[in-house]
C-alpha cells in the first residue's frame, strides 16, 4: 500500500528540489544524467531497489552505486572523487567528509544492530556473546578500523567481555563468508547481513547490542556534479516510501 504512494512522493520531492535549485533546470522531470552514489556495503540489497524505483520515476537519470567499506569510501570522497551522494554505515566516517566541508546536511536515516552469525546447525554450540571469550572456538570479528569492527569493540567494552578472535576481517561480508563456509564457529555481523544471507547462516540475537546500534547517515555532497538529482535521490531515501525498502531488509530507524 505504502509503496504505491511512491510516485506521488517523488513528484512532490522533485517539485521542492526544483524550487531550491538555480534557474533553468527548475522543472519537474527535468532531471537527467548520472547520479553517483557511494554507499556502505551493508546497504547493497535495499539500496539497489531504491535506485531502481528512482530510475522508474526519472527515466532520464542513471543511478550508479559503488559499494565498499565506509571508511575507504570517505577517503575517496575527501581525495576528490566526483560523487553526488554518500550513504555511510557510521557517523564517524560521515564526519570525515563533513569536516572536509564536503557533506551537505547529513541526516541519520537508519540503524542496524549487531547479531551473532553461526554456520547452519551451530556446530560450535554458541549461545551468546560470552562464548566469544572461549579460546577453543574459532571466532571472526571485523577489524576495529571498519564500522562493524568498531561497533563490536564498543559492545565488548560495554559488556566487559574480552573476545578471543582468530581473525579480524576487512569488512562484514568477509566475516560472513567465513561463517557460511563453516570455517569459523561464530562472527559478529549486522542483523541485516544475517537476513540477507538467508539459510547460509543462522542468527543469534544479542540483547546487549541494543545499546551499540550503528547509525547510517546520508548526505549529498557540495561538489556533486549532478546536484539536482542528488537532492531528489536523498529526499526519496528519506521519505517513508524510501525507508520502507530498508526496514523490509532488517534495518531500524532512529
Amino acid at each position: 500500500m505504502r509503496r504505491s504512494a511512491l510516485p506521488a512522493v517523488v513528484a512532490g520531492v522533485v517539485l521542492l528540489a526544483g524550487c531550491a535549485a538555480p534557474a533553468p533546470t527548475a522543472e519537474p522531470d527535468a532531471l537527467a544524467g548520472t547520479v553517483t552514489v557511494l554507499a556502505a556495503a551493508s546497504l547493497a540489497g535495499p539500496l539497489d531497489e531504491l535506485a531502481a524505483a528512482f530510475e522508474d520515476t526519472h527515466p532520464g537519470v542513471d543511478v550508479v552505486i559503488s559499494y565498499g567499506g565506509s571508511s575507504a569510501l570517505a577517503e575517496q570522497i575527501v581525495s576528490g572523487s566526483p560523487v553526488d551522494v554518500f550513504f555511510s554505515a557510521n557517523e564517524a566516517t560521515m564526519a570525515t567528509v563533513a569536516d572536509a566541508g564536503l557533506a551537505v546536511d547529513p541526516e541519520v536515516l537508519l540503524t542496524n544492530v549487531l547479531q551473532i552469525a553461526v554456520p547452519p546447525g551451530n556446530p560450535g554450540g554458541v549461545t551468546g556473546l560470552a562464548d566469544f571469550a572461549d579460546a577453543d572456538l574459532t571466532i571472526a570479528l571485523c577489524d576495529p578500523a571498519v564500522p562493524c569492527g568498531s561497533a563490536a569493540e564498543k559492545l565488548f567494552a560495554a559488556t566487559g567481555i574480552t573476545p578471543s578472535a582468530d581473525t579480524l576481517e576487512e569488512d562484514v561480508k568477509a566475516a560472513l563468508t567465513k561463517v557460511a563456509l563453516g570455517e569459523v564457529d561464530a562472527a559478529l555481523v549486522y542483523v541485516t547481513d544475517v537476513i540477507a544471507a538467508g539459510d547460509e547462516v543462522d542468527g543469534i540475537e544479542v540483547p546487549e547490542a541494543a545499546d551499540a546500534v550503528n547509525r547510517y547517515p546520508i548526505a549529498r555532497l557540495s561538489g556533486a556534479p549532478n546536484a539536482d538529482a542528488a537532492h531528489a535521490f536523498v529526499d526519496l531515501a528519506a521519505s517513508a516510501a524510501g525507508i520502507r525498502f530498508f526496514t523490509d531488509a532488517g534495518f531500524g530507524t532512529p
Partner: protein
Amino acid sequence: MPASARRRTRRPGPVVTILAALGLALLVLPLLGLLLRAPWGELPRLLASTEVLQALGLSLLTASLSTLASLVLGIPLAVLLAHSVAWSVVPRRLLRAVITIPMVLPPVVGGIALLLLLGRRGVLGQWLAEVGVTLPFTTGAVVIAQTFVAMPFLVFAVEGALRSADRRSELAAASLGASRAQVFRLVTLPLVAPGIGAGAVLCFTRALGEFGATITFAGSFPGVTRTLPIASYLAMNSDPDTAIALALLLLAVSLAVLLALRDRWLPGVVR
C-alpha cells in the same frame, strides 16, 4: 658488455622512445605520488610501532618460507615442465595451463579455492581436522597461500633456463660415468643457477606483496596472519598516513632485494 655486442643493438626510433617513456611513466609516476604524499617527518614514529614491526617480521618470515617451499617443489616441477616438450600436445598444454592459472586467477578466488580444499570443511581439511590440524587462521596458511600464488614465477624462470641450457655438458658428464643425480647436481643445477636465482627473487617479491589469497584463506590477525600488505590495506580505512608508511616499507624491502642481485639475475636478462 663487450663492444661488439653493444654495436649490434640499434638505437630505438622516436616512436618507440616516446611510447617507452609513456610506459615507464605509467609504472613509475604512481610510486612517485606515493613518495610525494609520504609523511616523511612522521615516518620514524609510524614505522617504529609494534604493529608495523610485527607485520614486517611476519612478512619477511612467511615470504622466505614460501620461497623455500617454492624452490623445493618448484625446481622439480620446472624439470618436469621442461621435459614435457616430448609429451603429446594435450597433456603438455594442460600442465603448462595448470601452472599458469595461479598467476592469472584473482588471488581472492585462489584463497576461496584453498579454503574449499584445506578449510575445516574442505575436501582434505576434514581429514586434517580429524587428526587435530586446522590450517586456516595460522601462519602456515599464509605460507601456503603465498606459495600457491608465487611458485609459478619460479617454475617458469627455471624452466626457461633449463630449456636454453646447453645439453651437451650433461651428455658429456653422463658418458663419463656420472649418475643421473650427479649430472643434475654437478652439471644441470650450476648451469641453471641464474634462472633459479631470478625465479627465487620474483617468487619472494610476489609472496611479499601477496594480499587476496592470504586474507581469504588465512584471515588477518596481528602477529599471526596479518602481513604488511594486509596491514597497509586495513590502515587505509582509518589512518592513511600509516598505510602509506607501510606501503613505502614494502616498496623498500622489494627494491632492496631486487637491487641486491646482479643484473643477469633479474627477470628478462636470464640467459
